[in-house]
C-alpha cells in the first residue's frame, strides 16, 4: 500500500527554461517525483514530494527550487518553544531521527 501525505502543499517548483535534461533529479529523488522526456524534466507527482531538497541541491543549473525542511512535528514544536527555526537537532538530546 502506498503512503500518501497531505495534498497540494509541496513547495516544489521547476523551471523548464533552465532545465538541461541531465536527469540528476530523477537519480536523487526518493519518491520518484520527476521524469525526463525529450531532454526536459517534468514533475509527474508533486503530492509525493517530501521537500527533502535533494533535487534542488543537485541541479547543476538551479532549475529546481523547494523550501526544504524536516517534516517532523517534534522539531517544529521545539522550534516554536525556543522561538527558533524548526530543527531536528539531536546532537544534545535524545530527540527525533
Amino acid at each position, binding site marked *: 500500500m502506498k503512503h500518501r501525505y497531505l495534498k497540494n502543499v509541496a513547495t516544489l517548483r521547476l523551471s523548464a527554461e533552465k532545465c538541461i535534461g541531465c536527469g540528476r533529479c530523477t537519480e536523487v*529523488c*526518493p519518491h520518484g517525483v520527476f521524469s525526463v522526456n525529450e531532454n526536459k524534466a517534468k514533475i509527474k507527482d508533486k503530492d509525493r514530494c517530501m521537500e527533502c531538497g535533494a533535487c534542488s541541491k543537485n541541479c547543476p543549473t538551479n532549475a529546481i527550487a523547494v*523550501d526544504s525542511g524536516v517534516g517532523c512535528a*517534534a522539531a517544529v514544536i521545539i522550534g516554536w518553544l525556543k522561538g527558533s527555526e524548526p530543527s531536528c537537532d539531536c546532537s544534545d538530546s535524545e530527540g527525533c531521527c
Partner: protein
Amino acid sequence: MSNEKSCCCSASSCCNTKSITPYDKNDKWVTGEIFTLKGSVPVVSTNLHFKDIFGAWKVRWGIGRMNYKISPGLYAVGKPDHTSPVLVSANYKLTFDVLRKELSGLNCWILILDTKGINVWCAAGKGTFGTDELVNRISKTGLSEIVSHRKLVLPQLGAPGVSAHEVTKQTGFSVVYGPVRAKDIKAFLDSDFKATEEMRTVKFTMWDRLVLTPIELAAAAKLSLVVFGILFLLNLFAARPFGLADFIAYAGAVITGTVITPLLLPVIPGRAFSWKGWLLGLIWALGFIWYSGWFVPESLLLAIGYLLVLPSFSAYLAMNFTGSSTYTSFSGVIKEMKIAVPLITISLIVGIVLLLINSICV
C-alpha cells in the same frame, strides 16, 4: 574509543606507514590492515557479531544512541586496490554495520564522513553529511593518491546534503548516487553503477515502521513518569483516587499512538498523522469505557473526560511519528499542526478538568 595506531615494528619499511583511520584494536569488526601509499587502512569484517547486534538493539531503544559512532576516515573491505570502487557513508555505527554486512566478497573502499554519529539521511538533512565534509574528508585521507579513478558512490539518501557538481568542481571526483538500501549495492555495482527505479525509491514497510516504534515508546514512557508523579500527588486528596483502570486507559492510549498507529499507518483512513492517531485513540477510548461500564449516568464525567483525553494523547504521539516517517513534507507537517495542535490542546484541557472534577469533587 579511538587510539592512534602505534608505530612499532621490526621491519623498517612499515615504520614509515602511519594510520589513516584511527580505530580501537579491541573492535572485533576490524580484521586487519591494508597498506597504501598514504598509510595503513583498517580492513573491516562483513559479518556482524553479537556485540554489533546487541548494540543495534540498544540504540533502537534509545540507549546510548547519541554516542554510537566510529572514527571517520577510510576503511577497506576485502583486498581493494587503486581501481576498486569507493563507497561513502556516515559514522553512525548502525549505518556502518548495515552497509558492511552487504559487502561480503567485494573489494572496495569505504569513506566514512563525520556525521556526529547520525545516519545518512538525517545527517544530509542537517548538512553534516554534506559537500564540505566530503571534500574535506577526501583531502584528509589522501584518497586521490590511493585510488587512480575519480568516481565516488554516495548513498542516494545523502543527496539532500551534497551538491554533486560542487564536489566535482572542488575535488575532481564525480559523484554517482547509489541505491537507497545497502542490500542493493552488489546489484548496483554489478550493473555498472545503474540503479533501477525500485532501488531509487524509499519504502516504509511494516517492518521499517516496527523497528522505529521502540524509540517512540521509550520517549513516551519517560514523559509518562511526569504524568504518574502528578497523579500520585492528586491521589493524596482525591475522593476517587486514580488506579489500575486509569493506568490501563492511559497506557492503551500511549501504545495506540506510538506503536499501533505507526504499524497500521497506510490502512488507517485519512492522511494527517494526528487524525489517524485520534481515530484509533477514539476506538480505544470507546472500547475501554464500554468495557469498564462507565457509560452510566453516575460515571458520565469520567466517560466524557476520557473520551476527550485519550484520543488526544494518541493523536499527539502519532503526530510526532511524522519525524520518523519517510514521506512527510515540512509544509504538510506545518499545515497539519496548525489545525491539530489547538484541537488537541483544547480537548486535553477540557478533558483533564472534567476528570479532576470527577476525581476530587464527586
